[in-house]
């Protein structure tokens, strides 16, 4: 069990006013140390809620039950101060929209410094050095440090977000659709960068996406979610090549491929429900 950096068991997320309505319905999975686990699903499948519950950043109107063990300690039982120290330090998160997650009136240097200052006591000079280091790490020229977010392209902004997430060498990085808003060429750069960083810093990654193409590029393990439940999980090769669950099969058929001339098949939800009921 030491191999798992994150162990989630029976996680449920529900609105406080209607505890019967399970948005995430009793999911159990592990993230192995140094591995990338991908959560795949459509919008509304509960994948982002799962990520937010790990960070303990769920909306006030939602509540959760179950266990989230991070390096052996239960995140759900911690007080907000302890969680705050872990957040950004041991667990970091990058979001889908680099345009809206950066503060437009602060320079990127200030924003990266801020995330370091919260968790360490570096001197001003050391801070400057560290920011330059981080920008180099994500392949942005440190000369750009005094730029404002609107002076950067979408890909560069996402790199800044990654630099901020890397600032304290997190053990676990949660990436919520980090490339969905980006061009294909920029997407492949960002995916490559994340892969390199993962190796270099021996990080574990929980990667959320709806694109199976991205999954096959980056994942070690895959979790497929549908309507708040995990319908299938396993190593990436197995899931992509020999999917067992009808939903995984249907979802794979929606993905356009550039190689063959496979016809796109939208999910037939009625057929799917019948197939699922038969299991």
């Amino acid at each position, binding site marked *: 069990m030491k191999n798992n950096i994150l162990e989630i068991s029976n996680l449920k997320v529900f609105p406080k006013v209607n505890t019967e309505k399970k948005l995430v319905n009793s999911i159990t999975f592990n993230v192995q140390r140094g591995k990338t686990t991908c959560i795949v699903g*459509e919008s509304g499948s509960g994948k982002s809620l799962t990520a937010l519950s790990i960070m303990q950043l769920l909306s006030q109107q939602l509540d959760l039950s179950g266990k989230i063990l991070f390096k052996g300690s239960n995140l759900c039982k911690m007080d907000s101060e302890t969680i705050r120290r872990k957040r950004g330090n041991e667990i970091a998160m990058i979001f889908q929209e680099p345009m809206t997650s950066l503060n437009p009136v602060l320079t990127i240097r200030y924003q990266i410094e801020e995330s370091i200052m919260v968790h360490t006591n570096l001197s001003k000079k050391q801070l400057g050095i560290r920011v330059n280091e981080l920008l180099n790490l994500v392949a942005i020229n440190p000369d750009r440090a005094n730029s404002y977010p609107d002076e950067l392209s979408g890909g560069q902004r996402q790199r800044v977000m990654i630099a901020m997430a890397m600032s304290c060498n997190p053990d676990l990085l949660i990436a919520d659709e980090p490339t969905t808003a980006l061009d294909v060429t920029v997407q492949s750069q960002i995916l490559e960068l994340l892969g390199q960083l993962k190796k270099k810093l021996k990080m574990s990654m929980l990667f959320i996406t709806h694109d199976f193409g991205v999954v096959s590029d980056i994942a070690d393990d895959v979790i497929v979610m549908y309507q708040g439940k995990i319908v299938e999980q396993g190593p990436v090769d197995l899931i992509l090549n020999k999917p067992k669950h009808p939903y995984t099969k249907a979802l794979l058929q929606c*993905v*356009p491929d550039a190689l063959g*001339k496979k016809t796109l098949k*939208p*999910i037939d939800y009625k057929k799917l429900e019948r197939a699922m009921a038969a299991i």
Partner: protein
Amino acid sequence: MSYLLSAKNLSKQYTQTQGFFSRKKTVINALDNVSLNIKKGSTLAIVGESGSGKSTLARSLIRLVNIDKGQIIFDGKDFLSLKSSALKIMRKNIQMIFQDPYASLNPRMKIQLIMEEPLLVHNVGAKIIKQKIDVMIKRVGLNISDLDKYPHQFSGGQRQRIGIARALILEPKLVICDEPVSALDVSVQAQIVQLLKSLQKEFGLTYLFITHDLRIVRHIADEVVVMRHGKVVETGKTDIIFQNPKTSYTKKLLASIPGIKKPT
């Protein structure tokens, strides 16, 4: 060969001003001698990264952007010399589907009104309007009862269906699709692509399809134009471009498709 639309040597420059009193001026070539032809009933895809000028091209083809130089022939007529009243009639034949189904529908208008507006603008008789809207809303997979709702009551895919219905209600000849599926989930993406394909067959539509996702291109386009920095880099039949790309830029684009394992 009959082309529905052919554009020759389109150029458009933007001037960017910087510095104190905007004294520093830089010229950006958004379109640099771009030519293209679209055959009737076919789909032409324009591919490129952001900033490559593909959206400027699309906008200039319906004269939402006025170009500096060049010629556009649509359906045998010189499109650029048309005066406003004639332009209005011609525009009926070119409709656009936008990328962002959240931003391109007026949040304070009911779907009924959203669908009605293009018909009213083009003076379609009141009796036919109701009938047309009912037929079209069903054709894109929604219900007549949905006409009484507001855009926020729909999901992203449903909103894109409304956008498609609004574009097609005037029975256009050419539909310009500006990244119509980029903002959608894969499962919804597949639905919308299939819908666009079946509508094309049914109404004999011609599509100009703008996207940065080459996987979608393979599924929908007959021909491809690859753009970079306002210039056309490569053009040709979809299969040929995919199997035998000539320029290094096209090769790079193809290599960045997720899911294609790079040789390491």
